[in-house]
């Protein structure tokens, strides 16, 4: 049964905090409370302790979105991590000194890791807010000298260059099974001047003090577009949002914090290239053409590392699925993958630190900022060439969105319908690319669509994409295994048992892709069926309206 903490903020002038010079940890800090509580409880004061409080979450705030907080408290030889939920349940475990960021798998085995690991998934746990705290605890005892309630005064301060004191807080922590006593304490304290119920957690307060808010990063293209917005400005707004996402992930890729930084960056570059291809004509002049080549370079820069990440992420499962070979036979392959990946990552980092990348993002931001809504230069497009004044950039975005979504849907259905049982793998790859184009357009213009219809259309498309992804990933990975085998043989890094195991792995990948290919016809027929066609028609009609 969750024990709800009750938290108060203490006014600086209150008798509860005592003299400010003692940072609230002196005897006077307790006088106000102690006088009120002594009539009902025996009191026992524990010594004060200074701790470091670090709140952790993944870069994309997975714990926050699941309604959880994760706090690492260390000090005086103690290291503990507590997972808290909005429902009040808490799981605490002692941990070795943590080196942050870390993967959830490095937490000690037990309930805490069992709870955190599924939430964090592939993402690392990062420090999102840090405070130094001097805490002093007062225990309230019953007639058996048993602790029934704990009161903690926390004098927190931010660390680092922005060091500043946080408002002192009083936390009433009920001991399980003694809620009535905690209720009583809460009622007594409520009568005390200088105490007000806290309207946010210590975490929220600390986060706000460093100018952040929970959930402040997402890889979603959530741009507020309106139907009548000029298409050029709207497309620029979408591209600016994509640039924000790219830049937000660069540091994580360089520091190699987890694989999903690169995944998000790569997907966002792909989205950017799709936007330039499918709606770049709404931008003035030859802007889209000028930058398309640079984003192609950036996309290619990420390919090798991401491909190797995919191999490594699926390695354990693939090894466990071997039938004739033993998982241990693949150990040399794993070693080679790790080595190749390290080398490719170094190459990627050089690219992301290059002047070419810096100039690309700098110039791209300047160019987009001049077009995006709200920019002082937004009107310059209308004063540009005849194409700029009368072209697609000046049309309402709803018209452009409807036309481009319809076209992408037509291209997808046409390309897919041409696929037969004997079609080469490249044809299915083309269908997948057309599907991605439609998916990205739907994401870019989501704000213009009826939300339930949009969700249904995306869901249908996603099912088709999953099938196509399975086919292509199987083929690509099978070919990659062949290439790796040749490379390892050349390096004399592949014993016979490893090559045999890799052969089995390639065969399994091929079998999975073939199975998915058999399913393609059914999936495609469903996607192009009447219901989905109506969904797309409805979306483009709503957009046009």
């Amino acid at each position, binding site marked *: *049964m969750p*024990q709800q903490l009750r938290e108060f903020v203490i006014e600086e002038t209150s008798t509860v905090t005592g003299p400010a010079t003692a940072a609230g940890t002196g005897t006077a800090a307790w006088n106000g409370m102690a006088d009120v509580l002594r009539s009902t409880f025996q009191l026992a004061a524990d010594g004060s302790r200074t701790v470091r409080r670090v709140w952790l979450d993944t870069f994309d705030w997975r714990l926050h979105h699941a309604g959880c907080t994760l706090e690492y408290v260390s000090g005086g030889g103690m290291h503990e991590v507590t997972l808290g939920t909005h429902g009040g*349940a808490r*799981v*605490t*475990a*002692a941990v070795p000194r943590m080196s942050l960021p870390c993967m959830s798998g490095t937490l*000690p085995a*037990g*309930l*805490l890791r069992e709870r955190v690991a599924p939430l964090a998934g592939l993402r690392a746990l990062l420090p999102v807010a840090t405070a130094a705290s001097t805490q002093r605890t007062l*225990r309230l005892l019953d007639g*058996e*000298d*048993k*602790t029934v309630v704990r009161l903690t005064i926390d004098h927190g301060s931010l660390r680092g260059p922005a060091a500043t004191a946080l408002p002192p807080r009083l936390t009433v922590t009920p*001991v*399980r*099974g*003694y809620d009535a006593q905690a209720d009583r304490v809460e009622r007594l304290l409520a009568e005390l001047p200088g105490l007000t119920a806290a309207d946010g957690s210590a975490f929220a307060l600390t986060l706000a003090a460093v100018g952040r808010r929970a959930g402040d990063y997402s890889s979603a293209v959530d741009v507020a577009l309106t139907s009548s917005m000029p298409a050029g400005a709207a497309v620029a707004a979408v591209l600016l949002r994509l640039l924000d996402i790219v830049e937000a992930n660069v540091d994580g890729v360089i520091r190699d914090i987890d694989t999903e930084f690169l995944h998000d960056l790569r997907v966002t570059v792909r989205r950017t290239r799709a936007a330039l291809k499918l709606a770049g004509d709404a931008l003035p002049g030859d802007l889209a053409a000028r930058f398309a080549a640079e984003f192609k370079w950036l996309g290619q820069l990420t390919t090798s590392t991401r491909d190797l990440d995919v191999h490594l992420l699926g390695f354990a499962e693939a090894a466990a699925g071997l039938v004739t070979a033993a998982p241990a036979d693949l150990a040399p392959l794993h070693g080679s993958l790790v080595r190749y990946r390290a080398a490719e990552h170094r190459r990627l980092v050089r690219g992301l630190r290059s002047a070419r990348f810096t100039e690309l993002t700098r110039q791209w931001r300047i160019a987009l900022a001049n077009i995006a809504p709200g920019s002082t230069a937004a009107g310059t497009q209308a004063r540009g060439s005849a194409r700029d004044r009368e072209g697609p950039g000046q049309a309402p975005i709803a018209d452009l969105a409807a036309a481009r979504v319809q076209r992408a849907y037509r291209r997808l259905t046409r390309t897919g319908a041409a696929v037969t049982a004997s079609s080469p793998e490249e044809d299915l790859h083309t269908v997948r690319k057309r599907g991605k184009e439609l998916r990205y357009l739907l994401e870019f213009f989501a704000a213009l669509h009826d939300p339930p219809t949009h969700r249904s259309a995306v869901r249908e498309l996603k099912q088709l994409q999953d099938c196509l992804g399975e086919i292509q990933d199987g083929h690509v990975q099978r070919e990659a295994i062949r290439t790796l085998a040749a490379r390892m043989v050349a390096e004399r890094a592949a014993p016979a048992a490893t090559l045999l195991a890799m052969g089995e792995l390639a065969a399994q990948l091929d079998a999975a892709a073939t199975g998915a290919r058999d399913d393609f016809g059914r999936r495609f027929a469903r996607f192009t069926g009447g219901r989905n066609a109506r969904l797309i028609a409805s979306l483009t009609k709503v957009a046009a309206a």
Partner: protein
Amino acid sequence: MRVYATYNVKGGVGKTSAAVNLAYLASREGSTLLWDLDPQAAATFLFRIRPRVKGGSKALVRGARPLDAAIKGTDFDKLDLLPADFTYRRMDLVLDAAKKPTRQIARLLTPLAREYDTVFLDCPPSMSLASENVLNAADTLIVPLIPTTLCTRTLDQLTGFVGAFDGRRPAIVAFFSMVDRRKRLHRDIVEHLPEERSDVATAAVPALSLIEQMAVRRAPLPAYAPRSTAAQCYRDLWKEISASGGEALK
């Protein structure tokens, strides 16, 4: 969630001291629950908690009172207690009236896996339906033995009982308790038996007045005398037991 039960058919061998001290040490690592199944309520007393469960064993077993509603927090972080109740002396009657009478405690503990890393069951000294429930619920039986000539026989009897048990069989880890180093017999047995038997821990707990003071201090020994030899003995024992992961010790 791992479930440990301190068990011996004999009384006064250090079951409760072991349960309280080992549960305290387990709670330093992760969330821990100690269920005092002994109606004498010694563990409950040591944690200064009232030995009462509303509705008694009948309410718990029949589900009228959820187990988690009866749990009390101790004075120590991450360590909770399910108190003893005087009605536990008739627990066999309540268990016998239930469906699957030997699996009731295991059933009651199942939902607690969401909350606790470790559960300790402090069992009364008997061979009863409640004992069979404990065998079904526990991953490891922790058996305190006083190093006397008959202690091997006691352990063999218990091993036989568990071996003949028609159900899930917990691992058995015995350890020497109340060891008096002044007695040659104690010294000989403590030295040789762990070498001969894989189910006997190397770590042993001496007979010390500091341990007896638990009843006066009403707290786990590692909490009030963390640097004492006795606390170190319990730490060694816990290290050995927790590292075994329910398998034979050696």
